[in-house]
């Protein structure tokens, strides 16, 4: 029956595939173009007529050689890795603990606290940038990576807590009861039951937290001023404004390199990506 239906609709399927392929091409062509430009010599930029693909004779790795020859870009890369991992680990533990308490206990001010967390998810994080900058000045964390991590953690905690809480609420309480009857404590329940069982939710929020920290621009742009302390987005935007003539080949070579870890994370953790996205949207 189903097979028959497919045969009957062959022209319709063909049309669907063509349209989807056009959409997919539009989705990825800008990135392909970026890589193409990064493989052309810098002097050939804004050539006339512009060519989408470089010719075989044109292909060069000189932009990548330049990037790999600069010590500061290694440091920028390490800074981005360090900041992103620190943000992911700290926010995973803190948000999971918070979510566990919201899902399993009653305490004074719980409803108000949770409502406030939801409220902060509505306001764009950037609107708080002025008082947060004042805070960073007070704590003397300007121009250091410790001026980034606590703020990133604070930004991602509301969403992470919200997602993990929803997940823990769906875990049957029987497991908890059994531990308490055996004389286990709250710590036992959290570390031995809730945290392992909620690990899919923790994994999916962690991927989003990683991306948030990896690509964050407005905050890092004002906090970090030294070349060697920059994260990758600031290093990439640093190619602008220094000179009148933008070295687009360098810009796109560094961009392509900084996009690679993201694509790897996406491919390896695709399952968690999708589950994290959809569990928020389907309820209701």
């Amino acid at each position, binding site marked *: 029956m189903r097979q028959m239906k497919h045969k009957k609709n062959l022209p319709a399927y063909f049309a669907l595939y063509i349209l989807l392929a056009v959409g997919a091409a539009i*989705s990825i062509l800008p990135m392909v173009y970026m890589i193409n430009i990064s493989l052309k010599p810098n002097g050939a930029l804004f050539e006339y007529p512009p060519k989408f693909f470089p010719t075989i004779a044109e292909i060069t790795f000189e932009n990548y050689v330049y990037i790999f020859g600069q010590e500061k870009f290694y440091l920028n890369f390490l800074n981005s890795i360090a900041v992103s991992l620190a943000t992911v680990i700290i926010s995973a533990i*803190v948000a999971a*603990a918070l979510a566990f308490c919201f899902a399993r206990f009653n305490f004074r001010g719980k409803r108000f606290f949770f409502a406030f967390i939801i409220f902060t998810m*509505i306001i*764009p994080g950037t609107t*708080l940038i002025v008082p947060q900058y004042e805070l960073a000045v007070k704590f003397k964390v300007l121009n250091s990576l410790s001026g980034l991590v606590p703020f990133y953690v604070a930004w991602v*905690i509301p969403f992470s807590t919200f997602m993990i809480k929803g997940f823990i609420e769906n875990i049957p309480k029987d497991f908890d009861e059994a531990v308490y009857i055996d004389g286990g404590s709250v710590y036992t329940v*959290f570390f031995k039951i809730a945290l392992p069982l909620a690990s899919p939710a923790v994994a999916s929020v962690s991927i989003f937290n990683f991306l948030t920290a990896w690509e964050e621009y407005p905050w890092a742009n004002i906090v970090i001023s030294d070349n060697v302390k920059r994260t990758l987005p600031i290093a990439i935007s640093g190619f602008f404004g220094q000179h009148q003539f933008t070295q687009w080949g360098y810009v796109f070579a560094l961009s392509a390199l900084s996009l690679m870890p993201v694509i790897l994370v996406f491919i390896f953790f695709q399952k968690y990506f999708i589950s994290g996205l959809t569990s928020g949207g389907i309820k209701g």
Partner: protein
Amino acid sequence: MRSLKNKMQMYSLLLPGFLIFLLFTVYPIFKLLAMSFFKWDFGSILKQEFIGLQNYKDVLSDDVFWTVLVNTLAYTAVTVPAQMALGLIAALFIQKIPCFKVGFRVLYYLPVITSWVIASLIFKYIFNTEGMLNYFLTQIIHFSSENIRWLDTRWTGLSAAMLLGTWKGIGWNMVIFLAALQTVPADLYEVAEIDGAGAFKKFFYITLPSIKGTILFALVMLTIGGFNVFTSIKMMTGGEPAHQTDVLLTWMYYKAFSAGKFGYSASLSFIIAVILAFLAWIQFKMMKSKENT
């Protein structure tokens, strides 16, 4: 489990998150409100002066504020429906095909995970006056006889940013709607088919009503996202010419960190937060009333 020990352990789990939230989010919210009543110029932290509502008056009487507000509203009004419609169409198509579903899902999602900085620079390059787009428009399809200075005028610059925002958002909508479509009961379609309903009837009478919860959720999230537009404008036009292409957040950022007017920026931020809270409230109300019907 009601022992004191367990109570202490519970609070110890609560404490780190509570303190981080209090210090880095709650305190800045109140500080923002407080700063908005002061003349607070950068570099003169010791010379703050209480000026009441003067900052709010300055913001509201500033022509640039109204320009950037209209720009932000236009950006949101264009990109939100465009992303939702295209994402929903992609989801409907992907749901119908027998194979390569995952492949298309991955390809459509790539723009979402590409960082704003990188995506903005690619679009800046494509929209450059000597760039690929103008070559295509003037030499290939002869749409225009001379190069359009895309990033140098208000509405062409904003259009470029809107195109980027839409392109980058389709994948997110596709994933959300694809999941929602799977929750629509298949027997509804079967009944409709027996009654002789065509594809469009099925879409408007079954699919759309069944996923309205997801549509409203996407509407809320994307409206917040539209007001969040920042990096694309900052990278592509930098607000040029003369703040004509700025949006609320880039204007606030400029006033704070280029012009050094922290008090002005604080009151502007507060106005943005109030506008968004109001919009979100209306949309949540809509969601509630739709659920009850």
